[in-house]
Every structure is written in structure tokens, then in C-alpha cells.
């Protein structure tokens, strides 16, 4: 099958239509994660209130001692540590979903548990995405440092006007560079899942000469995600108001009662809101990730012997 950007962009919808239970499985995974996070957050409100009171009391002290400041910092660290588990778990869940979507497109027959697994594929996806994120982040830091140097040189040589022009052109250039890099690396996860190996930079070879169609495909996928989020807000926004979450995000952030209401798991509207958000998140993952797996499948023509056609 020849690669068509507009065809591939729709792969997420095709995948969900072919196997709607996969969406249910992804939603359940997201819902469990969200509700557990909400439960943890609701348990943090009491300690946070006590910590705020301690901090306010310290504001009245003219010259707080180092011990007092350390005690305050340790208290805050202790509260935040209760949520520390969320970061690695979110990374693992993200890797499971990315691998599941790629598996759903590349190996559609293995549809048990909505293609969700927790094995070597997921570990490889986790490592590859983590390393590529680091590379991109490191590249961004380097790029902005280089731009800063260029701006300083331009200012010394040509004044403020020249520095502004260099700054704007440099920023635009960096944005273009990162878009290019992101597109060129975009097939890393499908390659990793299909070929069962750490494919850090193999995506460069597969995407060679196909930058524009892949960028167009990505733009269409992102726009479809925007559309889904726009439509889903018709349901999630009223639920957000009923659950109290909207009140929390609209200026009630300082009121402990409002925050407590937003995380109150005994309120069925809070659960309903979390479930709707989980459905949207699961659908979004499918719409956004599946096109890249389809692009890999169509570009390589299914030549990889590990792809189940």
C-alpha cells in the first residue's frame, strides 16, 4: 500500500471503528490513573492547608531561622513526595498506550486487552521516547544558547535593531528546525514496536524524502484532535461545572472548600467528569499516534517480517 498522508491521518478513527473495545480498554486505563491521582490529590488538601498555615505564620516572623525554613521546605517536600509516584506511572501508562496504538495498526490480529501489554515492547518504547525527549530538550537548550550568543554578537556589531532581527529570525529558524526534527523522528515508536528493537534514530532513514507528506499528516491529526476536544467540551464543560472542577479553575483556587469539592470522589459528577476526560484522552491518543504507525506500515510496505498484516 502506497503512503498517502490524508489516508494515514484517518488511521486512528479506522482503528477505533475496527476494534471499539480497544478504546474501552484505553479509557479504563486512563480512568484508573486519573481517579487514583484524584484520590491522592484529595488526601493532600489537609496537609497542604496545614502547611499554608505554617507558612503564613512564618511570614509574621521578622527573621526566620534556617531551621524554621528547612522545616517548611521539608514539609512541602513531604507533601509533594506523596504525588511522586504519579510521574513514573504516567510515563509507563504513556508507553503502554503508544505501544498499544502502534500494535493495533501494525499487528491488528493481536487485539487482546485492547492491544495493551506490559512487556519488552513497552520498555523499549519508554526508553526510546525518554531518550528522544532528552535529545530534543538538550537540542533546544543548545539552540537557544547559540541564539543568545548570536543576538549578543549582533547587538555588539549592529545595535538593538540588528539584534531584534537576528532574534526573530533565529527563533523562527529554531522552531522550523524542531518541527523538522520532530517529523524526522516521528516514526521511532512504530519502528520500535514493529521491529522489536531500540530504534532511536532509524526513523531518519524511513522518513527520508517524505518530510512534507508526514508534516501534512501530523497537521491533519492535530487538527482532528482539536476538533474532538472542541466537540467533547460540549459534554465535559457542563460536567466540569457540576463536579466543581470549573469553579476551582475559575478563581476559586485559594479556597480549600472549593478545591476539596473539585477532588471529592464521593461526588458522582467528579467521577463522571473524570471518565469523560478519560474517554477523550484515549480517543486523542488513538487519533494522534495511529497515523504514524500507518505511515511506517505504508512506507515500508509491510516489508518488516515482524509486521502482522
Amino acid at each position, binding site marked *: 500500500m502506497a503512503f498517502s498522508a*490524508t489516508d494515514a*491521518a484517518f488511521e486512528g478513527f479506522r482503528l477505533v471503528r475496527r476494534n471499539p473495545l480497544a478504546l474501552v480498554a484505553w479509557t479504563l486505563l486512563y480512568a484508573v490513573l486519573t481517579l487514583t491521582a484524584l484520590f491522592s490529590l484529595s488526601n493532600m488538601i489537609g496537609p497542604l492547608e496545614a502547611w499554608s498555615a505554617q507558612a503564613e505564620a512564618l511570614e509574621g516572623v521578622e527573621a526566620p531561622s534556617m531551621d524554621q525554613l528547612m522545616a517548611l521546605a521539608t514539609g512541602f517536600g513531604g507533601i509533594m513526595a506523596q504525588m511522586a509516584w504519579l510521574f513514573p506511572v504516567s510515563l509507563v501508562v504513556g508507553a503502554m498506550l503508544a505501544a498499544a496504538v502502534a500494535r493495533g495498526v501494525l499487528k491488528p490480529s493481536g487485539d487482546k486487552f485492547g492491544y495493551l501489554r506490559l512487556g519488552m515492547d513497552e520498555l523499549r518504547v519508554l526508553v526510546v521516547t525518554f531518550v528522544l525527549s532528552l535529545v530534543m530538550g538538550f537540542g533546544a537548550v543548545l539552540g537557544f544558547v547559540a541564539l543568545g550568543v548570536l543576538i549578543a554578537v549582533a547587538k555588539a556589531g549592529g545595535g*538593538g*535593531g*540588528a*539584534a*531584534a*532581527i537576528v*532574534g*526573530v*529570525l533565529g*527563533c*523562527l529558524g529554531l522552531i522550523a528546525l524542531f518541527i523538522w526534527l520532530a517529523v524526522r523522528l516521528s516514526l521511532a515508536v512504530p519502528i520500535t514496536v514493529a521491529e522489536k528493537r531500540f530504534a532511536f534514530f532509524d526513523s531518519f532513514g524511513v522518513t527520508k524524502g517524505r518530510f512534507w507528506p508526514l508534516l*501534512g499528516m501530523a*497537521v*491533519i491529526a*492535530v*487538527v*482532528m484532535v*482539536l*476538533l474532538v476536544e*472542541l*466537540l467533547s*467540551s*460540549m459534554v465535559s*464543560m*457542563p460536567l466540569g*461545572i457540576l463536579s466543581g472542577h*470549573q*469553579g476551582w479553575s*475559575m*478563581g*476559586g483556587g485559594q479556597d480549600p472548600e472549593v478545591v476539596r469539592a473539585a477532588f471529592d470522589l464521593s461526588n458522582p459528577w467528579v467521577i463522571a467528569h473524570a471518565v469523560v476526560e478519560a474517554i477523550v484522552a484515549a480517543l486523542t491518543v488513538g487519533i494522534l499516534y495511529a497515523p504514524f504507525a500507518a505511515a511506517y506500515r505504508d512506507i515500508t510496505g509491510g516489508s518488516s517480517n515482524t509486521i502482522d498484516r
Partner: protein
Amino acid sequence: MGDEMARFSIGTAINDAFSLMRRRPLSVFVWGLIMVAPSVAGLGLLWPMMGDMVAAMAMRAGTDGPDPAVMANMMQFQAASWLLNIVQLLLMVVIYTAVMRAMLRPRESSFFSLRLGMDELRIAVVGLAVIVGMYIAIFVLILIGMAIGFATWSAGSPTNWLVIVGLIVTAFVAICIALARVSLIAPASVLYRTFAFAEGWRFGRGQTGSLFGMGLLVMLIIILVEGIVFTIGMAIAVAAGMAGGMNWATPHSHTMDVNPFEGMNAVLAANWPWFAAGALVLSMVYGAVMTLSVGSYASACGQLAGNGGSIPADEQSPATVA
């Protein structure tokens, strides 16, 4: 199939739009009504809410801290207006697609050419992509404008203002020209029943000036038509008011300066037959405006695709441009 030498006629495109209005006036009215009715219903919903908010704020005047009732009203108002905006956007997608379908696939005329399917999804995606692209372009233009502004700031006062005005006008024209360049992607997507980004872009090649000019012409026609309708409407309203057909006593009994929304509600309630008749006229005008602005570009797309310079007679989509 369109070729590189293909041209379209602005006159034919605008004539096709008017021809569609003549052939299917009821559809044009229904398209307008579908857009106007939710707006009117929205006003009926939002004005009382704004009236309640103003009344609650007036009662709280002089007291400190946010009132939970006012906050709740504000949240409800924001949610309602957001939902209304989304519904209107969705309806706009459905109506624009219907106009394009009526122009490019005239045989699919049942139920006023209105559908809710893949065509609509494609138009929504194309529309959103164009909006996102436009915002990115505006962002880039602002950055470039800032750089030029910094570079020329030392030139002094009159030059600075000339540069600012020049930049704003240039950016506005550049955005309009860019929108004209991509204006055929949506009708091409309806014509070919696919995401016709490539085909629409190819059709627009060498036609940007004509498409931009057609947009200006359509805008002038719309201003003219709306001016005439507004003048006639105002004349009827003034005549009816002088003849005693409209009730101005009710609003005057309200304190418009304290709570204008409550006053406007009273005006609406007391004169609802006039407003209902006005909404029906507005529906026809709005339907015609949409038919003209969307239909003319659909016709241009049809002409460039090789359908003989007028509304295609056959519903078969031409082969996709290679």
C-alpha cells in the same frame, strides 16, 4: 480535470451563486434560519443571565470579596456562551458544506442538501487547519513586525507611525491573500470527497489575484445588500414606532441605565412579533450572504476542475488531480 492553464471567471462564479439562490430559495432561507435561530435563542438565554449578573453585582456594590452567587452566574454564563459558540461553529460547518454540495453536487438536493457525514468532518478539519495556519502566520508576522519596528524605531515620530500603519496594512493584505490562496481547498474536498489539500492548492496556483479580487467583490455586494436591507428595516421600524405599532412604554418603565439587559429583555418580550418577523428576514439575508460567499468559491473550484465554467450537471466527482 484541471490543467495548469485552467482559468475561472469571477462573473460566472458570482452568477452561479445567484443562480443557486434563484433555483433554491427555500434552501437558502433554511440555511440562514439554521444559523440565525440559535443566535436568537442564545440571546434569549444569555440576556436574562447577564441581567441577573448585573442585578447581583448592583446588590453587592460596596461589599468586599467575590460573591459565590455572582461567581456561579458568571460560570454558567461562560459555559452557556462557550457551548453556544461551539454549536454555531458546528452549524456553520454543516451549512457551508451544504452550500458547496448544492453547487458542486446538485443532484444531492434532498433535505436542503444538509447532511452530517464525512464531507462535514473534512470541512471542519480543513477549516480548523486554515484557522490554525492563519494564527501561526499572524504570530510570525507580528514577530517580523516587531523586528522591523525595533530596527526603525530610531527614525523618529512621523516615520514610526508610517512604518506601523504600513506594517499593519501589509500584514492584513498578506493574510487576506493567503486566505484567497487556500480558499479552494474546502470546495475541492467536497468535490473529490477526500482531504483535497493538494488539489485545492493546485487549483489556486496562478489564481490568487482573481480569488482575492472575487472576495473583495463579494464583500462589496454583501455590504450593499446589507445596507439596503438595514435601511428598509430601520424605515419600517421607525414607521411602526410612529404609528404606535411598537411598544416603547415597557422598556421605559425599566431602569435601562441601571440594568440594560433587563431593559432589552422587556423590549424583546413586548415586541416579539416584530423581532420574529425581523429574524425571518434576517434568515433570508444571511442565507443569501452565505450562498454568495461560499457558493462563488465552490463555483470557481468547479470551473477549475473542468466542469465547463458553470454549475456541474452531474454529481460524479471528477478524477482526482494527479
